[in-house]
């Protein structure tokens, strides 16, 4: 008897999990999401293999062109104040911006998802305390907190080493963004968990005697994956924006420049008052396009999930 219950239970869960794939398929039916996915794929491609597209990253010593050349046949996006090709810089910047954005988003989702599930499942005092902290982080100017934390963290770890080819300067940025932007994810995950907790399959798992951690891992998490995915894409957009702002202010890494670092260089080279619009245009448009594409996909998934819920009711 109990054996057959487990079987139906697991098939039912598997059915619900496949909802993620269904959402993916439905996404491809929307033209706006399709365009956004294509754009993001192209950007990811340039992030994965920038050398194949534009050669190695140009530096002050390897740059050959004159300084601040406007766009032309040889330099499609123009050159910067050191004579580096802006197409080269922007394509290489894609790698840093996307990797830092994605890693920060991953940390944000792990912290936010974890706290949200624990708060929602445990309820009571744990929930009240965790949500109090989450609300504080939601309200606070976390960007300013990130500004303070990044240099402190950097002085603590030092910035001379690399981990998996990523310099620790960038890793501190990843950690800081993750630490400061988890609160909205935690809120969303918590409210999902609250309603899941009352569902019969979770109650049954509880009766069978599974530990809370197991229930969260086996029964709660698979059911919030799609919500987490939708949120994750929006979080990536936010992380890329935050990263570019931090790098613009000068917390980026000059040896691994992101789009924000390039814009920071443009600012210190006084590009706006020299009228060097191409120095500003290329990296800025890259940020804009990425963030808009992520937001469009996130909104599309949200709308599909919304319709899903309404149809099921």
């Amino acid at each position, binding site marked *: 008897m109990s054996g057959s219950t487990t079987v139906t239970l697991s098939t039912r869960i598997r059915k619900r999990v496949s909802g993620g794939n269904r959402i993916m398929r439905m996404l491809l039916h929307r033209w706006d999401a399709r365009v956004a996915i294509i754009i993001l794929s192209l950007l990811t491609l340039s992030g994965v293999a920038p050398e194949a597209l534009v050669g190695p990253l140009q530096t002050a010593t390897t740059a050959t062109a004159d300084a601040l050349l406007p766009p032309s046949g040889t330099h499609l996006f123009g050159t910067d104040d050191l004579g580096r090709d802006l197409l080269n810089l922007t394509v290489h910047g894609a790698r840093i911006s996307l990797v830092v954005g994605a890693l920060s988003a991953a940390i944000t989702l792990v912290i936010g998802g974890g706290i949200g599930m624990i708060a929602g499942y445990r309820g009571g005092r744990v929930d009240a305390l965790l949500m*109090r*902290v989450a*609300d*504080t982080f*939601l*309200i*606070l*100017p*976390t*960007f*300013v*907190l990130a*500004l*303070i*934390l990044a*240099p*402190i963290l950097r*002085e*603590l770890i030092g910035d001379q080493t690399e981990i998996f080819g990523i310099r620790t300067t960038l890793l501190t940025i990843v950690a800081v963004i993750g630490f400061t932007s988890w609160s909205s994810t935690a809120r969303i995950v918590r409210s999902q968990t609250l309603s899941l907790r009352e569902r019969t399959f979770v109650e049954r798992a509880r009766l069978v005697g599974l530990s809370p951690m197991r229930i969260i891992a086996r029964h709660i998490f698979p059911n919030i994956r799609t919500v987490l995915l939708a949120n994750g894409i929006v979080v990536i*957009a936010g992380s890329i*924006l935050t990263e*570019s*702002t931090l790098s*613009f*202010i*000068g*917390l980026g890494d000059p040896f691994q420049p992101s789009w*924000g670092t390039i*814009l920071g260089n*443009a*600012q210190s080279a006084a*590009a*706006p*008052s*020299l*009228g*060097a*619009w191409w120095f*500003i245009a290329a990296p*800025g448009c890259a*940020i*804009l396009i990425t*963030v*808009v594409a992520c*937001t*469009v996909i996130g909104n599309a998934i949200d709308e599909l999930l919304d319709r899903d819920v309404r149809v099921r009711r």
Partner: protein
Amino acid sequence: MKARRWLLGRFGGAIATILMVLILNFVLFRLMPGSPDRALARNPRVSAAAMEAARVRWGLDKPIFPDQLIAYVGATITGDFGYSVKYGGREVTSVIGEKIGPTLLIVGLGELIALAAGIALGAWTGWRRGRFGDRVGTLGALILYSMPYFWTGMLLITLFATTLGWLPTSGITTPGGPGGIQGAIDLLRHAALPIATIALGLIGQYAILLRSSVAEALREGYVLTARAKGLRDERILRGHILPNALLPTVTLAAINAGYVIGGALTVEIVFSWPGLGLLTQEALQSRDYPILQGVFLLLSVSVVMTNLLADLLYSRLDPRVRHGAAR
């Protein structure tokens, strides 16, 4: 009774948040490379007597918890934020105090313009949802929302200051410029682009928020009733939909205030506008942690206050909140 408990809860929450910020600041203070006295020791101009004074003041010869924490919280509450490293040991409060005015000017005016324009754009796109105008307006709002503030500022300088030459590129006044009314005009000419940058960054956010609440309100029964009564569209929108749709915008705008301020700080860097943003960047470059913490604390407290105000306003506008009926 319920309303009073609600009010107390709000105030208690705000105080708890500020306390949490203080503790966070304290932890950062201890975490940072070189505790307060070692930070002072890096500054060659600080005398041994001053070091000793700092030691006594922060209770550095006593345990971190609870003595140092109490000393820190006590000092901060009485307005003692410590001393700036960069500004030759001047008090943090006085350094920051000078910079609040310029920041308030551009953030305040930018916010007002953005609210008005964002509400107009959001109401219009929400009302015409699904049609061509809505698509264009919503895409425009999304693009504005996705542009980093500093980038918008750089583009505006390139276009309006450098290429067209209509407005100055940076600074707050022309050095040695005239006083009086001429001086005020000069100040406004300098402030125009920073204000426009902040306004442009915020319009998208408000428009997107209001559009979704207007679209939601359109599905409500009372709109159908108003239509059935034969009211004109404009009356329905102004008298029936907007009062309801504005509420979520108020709260969400308040929650987002902290995020907005962070972005607005970078605008000052682009325009060399002598406010808190420029101060923050300078402090960052010279590792002037007391200033950074002071800025963080000041902004946190103002954001918490903004949220408290928004909550009180919300409860005035929607009594259900006070009586715990909503949600």
